[in-house]
């Protein structure tokens, strides 16, 4: 196996960084989902146990974690659309670079709209 890839067209450019980010966010969401299904399953066991675990979801520290989760999902979802367009749209690969910045812009705008509202919810709950 070659340890040093020789390509320079791809390495270090938008194509590579979007792929790295897509991979990291995918893994992060995956591990969240594993835990999330387990915590949700407590509704079938004991309502009080469920409410107890949900109380930790409402703390300030986890509140910031939820910001990270939403950021990860926003990027992964819109970059997923970009990947689909590159694969199926005739002009997709021509615009892949531009589409990456559109993905970043849409994710950022939605995140900027979400974050203050979420923090207000979290801090008003913890008052």
């Amino acid at each position: 196996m070659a340890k040093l890839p020789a390509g320079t067209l791809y390495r270090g450019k938008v194509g590579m960084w979007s792929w790295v980010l897509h991979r990291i966010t995918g893994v992060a969401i995956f591990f969240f989902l594993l835990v999330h299904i387990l915590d949700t399953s407590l509704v079938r066991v004991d309502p009080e146990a469920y409410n107890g675990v949900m109380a930790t979801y409402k703390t300030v520290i986890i509140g910031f974690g939820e910001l990270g989760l939403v950021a990860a999902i926003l990027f992964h979802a819109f970059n997923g659309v970009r990947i689909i367009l590159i694969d199926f749209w005739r002009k997709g690969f021509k615009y892949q670079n531009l589409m990456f910045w559109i993905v970043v812009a849409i994710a950022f705008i939605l995140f900027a709209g979400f974050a203050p509202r979420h923090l207000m919810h979290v801090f008003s709950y913890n008052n």
Partner: protein
Amino acid sequence: MEIVIETPNSPRKRKGANWEKYGWMYMRISGAVLIVLIFGHLIVNLWDKGVGAIDFAFVAGKWTNPFWQVWDVLMLWLALIHGTNGMRTITNDYAEKEWVRKTLNITLWVVCGALIILGTLVATTFDPCIDPNAVNYLPTVCK
């Protein structure tokens, strides 16, 4: 080292179902559907009234409605299989020893299967009146 791929666009010769291709299609189709399901999930659970509103009664309010049960079960299957298949791609990329790769992939699918069964049972057999003696969190449907 140089890697030469001869005639990359020549038709596949191997017989049998092309599972990698189905997996590739699945990632794209499930991804498109998941945008609707996950964004809807986050809007209702995180945006609308915020995490502070989530408790047993909140879940009871949703899961006594078949609409949300179907929504969540669909989301559960699509997201878990999508995520597990994505993790498989990643272990295939990084695990260099064959037995490590096999073990990780088998573990991934076993966990995926177990959580799909668990989550499906939880959402479909949900009982809002599981504890009729409760006072604080008993949903109105039980009173």
